[in-house]
């Protein structure tokens, strides 16, 4: 899923300066799971913005809404369609795709991002997420036991490990992190596929996805 983090309140306040009626729009999919932009976070941010503006002469007027999936036009129109005409600006708590979907639909209104979209990842433990995929468009996982060296190795090495692996299989750049290539070795060892470690892999095509990426389903 897509992992995001909320921007500092000060930055959000600066974006919204000059606007008095705003809609705070959350998303019930990825950013809900990573505690960044779900219904609850919409409530918290709205309360904070109201409290921050309570000393001003005309405080903020805030509408709240949460879309099932902010990156799907139909869902955005269904949930936000009747609320947007009442506001001057929209503060989206979706990922980058969500913000742009909302901005595409409501072209006449400024749409501001409340989150920084950071990576594609999975939950590591409660309240912590870790990057798992760099969306490079040329998947290497078949050769690395299902562990991606492109994002989980600090250097993105395809023929690892580097010479800096610490005792205990930790990364030389961040001793808190596991060396991806130690993990790959152990995984391949369990699977009896260590021969893959002896192969040399040529530099990967990092331009497999031409920006902006576009994919069509085979049947479409």
């Amino acid at each position: 899923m897509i992992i995001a983090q909320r921007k500092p309140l000060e930055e959000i306040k600066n974006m919204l300066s000059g606007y008095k009626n705003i809609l705070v729009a959350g998303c019930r999919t990825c950013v809900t799971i990573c505690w960044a932009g779900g219904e609850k976070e919409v409530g918290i941010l709205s309360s904070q913005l109201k409290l921050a503006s309570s000393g001003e002469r005309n405080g903020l007027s805030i509408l709240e809404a949460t879309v099932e999936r902010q990156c799907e036009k139909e869902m955005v129109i269904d949930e936000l369609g009747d609320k947007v005409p009442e506001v001057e600006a929209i503060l989206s708590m979706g990922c980058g795709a969500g913000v742009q979907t909302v901005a595409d639909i409501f072209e006449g209104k400024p749409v501001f991002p409340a989150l920084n979209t950071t990576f594609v990842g999975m939950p590591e433990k409660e309240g912590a997420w870790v990057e798992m995929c760099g969306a490079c468009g040329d998947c290497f996982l078949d050769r690395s036991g299902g562990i991606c060296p492109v994002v989980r190795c600090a250097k993105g090495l395809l023929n690892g490990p580097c010479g800096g692996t610490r005792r205990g299989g930790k990364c030389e750049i961040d001793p808190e992190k596991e060396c991806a290539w130690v993990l790959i070795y152990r995984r391949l060892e369990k699977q009896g596929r260590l021969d893959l470690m002896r192969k040399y892999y040529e530099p990967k095509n990092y331009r497999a996805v031409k920006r902006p990426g576009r994919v069509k389903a085979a049947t479409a």
Partner: protein
Amino acid sequence: MNREDNKIVAFCCEHSAYQAANKAGRTRLYYPDNVRIIRVPCAGRVDVQHILKAFEKGAAGVLVMGCQEGACQHLTGSTRAKERVKYAESLLKEVGIDGGEVRMVNLAPDMAQRFIREVKEMAEKIEGR
């Protein structure tokens, strides 16, 4: 409710703090009249949003009052509440409410005097701002 009224919202666990407040009332002990007690089934029911909403609606202080740690009827309610109060403090700090206006208190059901002391302390803190 205006912030000027110096209202205090006290979320009280019905197994402990609410009993303590009840005892204070039954024994005719005085405590500040600007406190609004909200009975909750457990301090762990109190969410960050409830705390923020109280301030948004004009409360000047919020007390989250639950069982003593280890004595929670629902095992982890008081511990969860403590963490949430800490998180609420950090959120309130971002908007400039940063003088101990939100506080977690752990009480036993018979601690009427302690309940009164905590409410009084909060009332004095708010008045002294």
